[in-house]
């Protein structure tokens, strides 16, 4: 997902002279062709994330569309006030694209984990928050939102799910009257396994966090028998990011609601991501087992 994002952004950069790229000392080599094309619009800003975001706000005030790219905790938690005031309050069209997706940098430890980024950015009015599950989603987000006049946060990951087609921001993958499962971004890696597991529930997929379409959820549920109380499960690759709250506040006839997400605790282990997934019960196999218990 990250590499495809680089490729896509480099192509857009060459076509649109209003795009400026600010890198927090990552991805520099991958943007070699962009640097060669026009070095006045792409900068390795080094290790100064707070100022990088304020600089982006200044560029935006003069009509540029800045992309700011760095590792998730450094471009979210470290510089929250710059995001809130210089970009959020000013409602600048700045695209903050993070990488690191909760604990992608598993072996680097807690300093490089950021499972709370979606909540943090979502708490800032005006920001649109996206959690794509694959490169098609990223393309869709850029195509639909790049030129819209609001700030955007795109959570990139090293790991994609295997959905091949471009999906809308809320798509039904499977229909069943026995309940609802909402899968966010790349919280499930292999959808073939999930869809073949004969779980008796409607399965929807989304990557749009801040504009999660709860009315569409209501429509989907009312397509079935609205008198039946619904068991709902939300699967997220982060801390729970508000989708459950939106559902609870808007959907009637909920029998039970379940959250499968990164737990609010420091992950004090290293290893590869799949090891941490497994230890938290967030690998595909563990998630599907839990779903089978919920929807048996």
């Amino acid at each position: 997902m990250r590499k495809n994002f680089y490729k896509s952004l480099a192509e857009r950069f060459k076509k649109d002279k209003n795009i400026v790229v600010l890198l927090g000392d990552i991805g520099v080599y991958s943007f070699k062709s962009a640097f060669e094309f026009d070095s006045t619009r792409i900068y390795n800003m080094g290790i100064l994330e707070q100022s990088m975001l304020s600089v982006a706000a200044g560029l935006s005030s003069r009509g540029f569309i800045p992309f700011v790219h760095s590792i998730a905790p450094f471009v979210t938690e470290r510089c929250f006030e710059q995001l809130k005031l210089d970009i959020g309050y000013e409602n600048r069209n700045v695209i903050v694209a993070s990488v690191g997706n909760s604990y992608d940098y598993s072996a680097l430890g807690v300093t490089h984990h950021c499972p709370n980024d979606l909540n943090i950015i979502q708490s800032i009015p005006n920001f649109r928050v996206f959690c794509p599950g694959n490169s098609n989603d990223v393309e869709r987000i850029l195509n639909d939102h790049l030129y819209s006049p609001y700030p955007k946060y795109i959570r990139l990951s090293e790991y994609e799910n295997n959905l091949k087609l471009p999906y809308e921001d809320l798509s039904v993958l499977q229909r069943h009257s026995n309940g609802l499962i909402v899968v966010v971004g790349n919280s499930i890696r292999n959808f073939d396994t999930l869809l073949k597991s004969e779980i008796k529930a409607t399965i929807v997929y989304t990557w749009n966090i801040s504009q999660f379409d709860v009315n569409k959820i209501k429509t989907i549920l009312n397509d079935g028998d609205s008198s039946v109380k619904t068991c709902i499960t939300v699967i997220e690759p982060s801390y729970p990011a508000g989708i459950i709250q939106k559902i609870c506040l808007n959907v009637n006839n909920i029998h039970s609601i379940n959250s499968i997400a990164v737990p609010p605790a420091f992950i004090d282990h290293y290893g590869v991501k799949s090891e941490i997934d497994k230890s938290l019960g967030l690998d595909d196999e563990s998630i599907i087992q839990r779903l089978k218990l919920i929807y048996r």
Partner: protein
Amino acid sequence: MDRTDCVKRIIETSYLNKEGHIASALSVLDAIIVLFEKMSPEDEFVLSKGHASLGLYVVLLKKGIITSKQFYSFGQFDSILGGHPSSHKVPTVKISTGSLGHGMPFAVGVALAKKIKKENGQVYCVIGDGEANEGTIWESALIANTYRLNNLTVLMDYNSSGERAIKMGDCVGKFSSFGWKSSSTDGHDIKLISQALNVDSDSPKFIQLNTIKGKGCKTMENNPEWHHKTPANDIEYQNVIEDVYS
């Protein structure tokens, strides 16, 4: 521009509305007066130390950019003029400052944008010595020199606010060591400020303005009590107005 009248108006609206960092507005006032006389439409101004907003507002009033009614509504519920300037409300303001250390990196972004677009004009940014405690000031100093933003001038209102906490010491030396063309001058002498602004440079420019907090009102000068205080009653108001000198 009549400085004494500006000082009186700042104290007056602050007293009427029970809000305002009067002393900081008075230390920065001369620099803002000079800049608004000097700037062309191609130039940009950023008041990074947003709490000195009354110093900006009174100049906007004198220049006819805001009305007297607006000026004297300072801090009221429906006013366009808050204790810190909002870009959504105040003409000429491009970034809402108040939290310190945001305006200077923003100004760096504006200067960089003008370089990319090959536009003329300078970006002027006013910071404080206390504000220079913030790491983003020095991050911005690094960026501006790295990209040789000689269209950026930062003026430091060195009113010694920082003396009560983390002292900034020799900021001319500090900015020079970051590659800026740096100088120091009397921040209340309009001719000297103008001369410092007119110096050509291939690098970003730093001007330390040696100022007095509360300048122009004897009661307030270098008196920490007046950092964020307004006259408590008519008697105190009359006393400080009588203390205003030219």
